[in-house]
């Protein structure tokens, strides 16, 4: 009888190791909103000072973050600051996407826009050779999706909305949304349609 209890305590102990996220934004109102979004996740602990696993910075953050801390940069300028920037996102990025980037950065992933124009690649009417961009898929490493993300992607490719994905995988809609956001980031996709098209071209979804 005792053993399962102690196991659970150990398990809980491991799960309660929260990711400390330093929010070092010049925009105080944005920082406050973001802190609230982060605090909504059990595994994230937003702080405004001290050491952290990951820092969220913007163009006005200056040197408050040690160079060794992985950073998620919300940038309007597109300039890369020094230090270990693992993710660069538009200044107006959705909080959910930022949270996903934080987790990925903490895990050592580098999140990059990879120069894709993103929107509506499907409607590339083409200024010439219709296959001019075929080469661009060649050098692209297949993104490493978690098994759960692969399941979500397969449902996404069937056209399932978040509600259906949640029901089929027996997870909350919030969690389904989170997985979708992480998939978009990993694939460098602008939206669901773009994600499916990229996944098909990279062999992640059956054609």
């Amino acid at each position, binding site marked *: 009888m005792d053993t399962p209890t102690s196991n659970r305590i150990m398990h809980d102990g491991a799960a309660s190791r929260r990711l400390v996220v330093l929010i070092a934004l010049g925009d105080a109102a944005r920082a406050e909103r973001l802190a609230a979004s982060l605090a909504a996740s059990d595994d994230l602990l937003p702080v405004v000072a001290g050491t952290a696993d990951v820092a969220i910075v913007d163009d006005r953050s200056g040197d408050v973050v040690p160079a060794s801390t992985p950073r998620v940069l919300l940038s309007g300028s597109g300039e890369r600051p020094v230090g270990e920037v693992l993710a660069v996102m538009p200044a107006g990025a959705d909080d959910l996407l930022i949270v996903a980037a934080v987790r990925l950065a903490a895990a050592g992933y580098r999140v990059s826009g990879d120069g894709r124009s993103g929107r509506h690649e499907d409607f590339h009417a083409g200024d010439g050779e219709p296959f001019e961009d075929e080469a661009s898929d060649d050098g692209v490493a297949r993104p490493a999706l978690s098994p759960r993300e692969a399941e979500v992607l397969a449902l996404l490719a069937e056209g399932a909305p978040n509600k259906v994905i949640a029901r089929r995988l027996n997870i909350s809609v919030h969690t389904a949304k989170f997985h979708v956001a992480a998939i978009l980031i990993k694939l460098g996709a602008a939206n669901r349609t773009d994600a499916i098209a990229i996944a*098909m071209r990279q062999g992640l979804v059956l054609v």
Partner: protein
Amino acid sequence: MSDFNLSAFSQAIADLAAKVAPATASFVTHHHRTASAFHWRDGYFVTAEEAVEAGEEIELTLASGETVKAELVGRDPSTGVALLKPADAIDAAPLAKADAVRPGNIAIAIGSSQGSALAVSGSVGEVGPAWRSMRGGTIDRRINLAIGAGGRFEGGPVLDAKGALIGMLLFGPRHRALVMPYETIERAVVTLREKGHVARGYLGAGLHPVRDRDAHGAMVMSLDDDGPAKAAGLSLGDIIVAWNGEAVHGPRDLIRRLGPDSAGASVTLGVVRGGEQRDVALTIGERPLS
């Protein structure tokens, strides 16, 4: 001496925009931006498929500023058309179809953003023949615009100088404005109203681009046990290099051929295995396109 009247020209464009405004609506996309939609006919609205993220109920803000819940009837990624059905009847006349346009003709993009009417005028920059989208849709004409339309215009109607409908505004790479032509939307709407989705051709194979010296193709990385590719004897590692005798340069090219018209078609694939090319005949399967 020209009798051109700049003020009258300006008023004429504003009048066209005002006339169409009641047929437009907007909705919030996932990045907290808005996109436009417009009344097609019979109470159905069309919009840009890529702007519709969640695939759940959508709240349309009509030109009057009122909001109405709308059901997503279906989406067609091959033409970029999504079809919406508002819960309440909308009292707006359908737009008439424009005659053929030529490069240089005036084009007026109309949009809506949370009750504000949007309009911008520019010109038709290019008119070309039918083309095939990356997801295999047949687009009846290539119409590119020279127009300063921002993201909120996406999914809105594009009018000619008579106020008739050329098509729907979408953005291509590098934010280039293009028009999904009227007749293409019409075909997509018919299919979506009937089936709720558009078909795509299905091989049942996961593909990856390969380039071996001069040969380009799509390598089979995974197979659906019940799919057409497996049934036809394709194996992992096979490289698809041709479709009915025409070269296939990689997955992009193959996906482009697996459009709605390909479902059920008999094709001969050129497949390289162990350095030798052979022909494999198979019947393309069908899946809902998403």
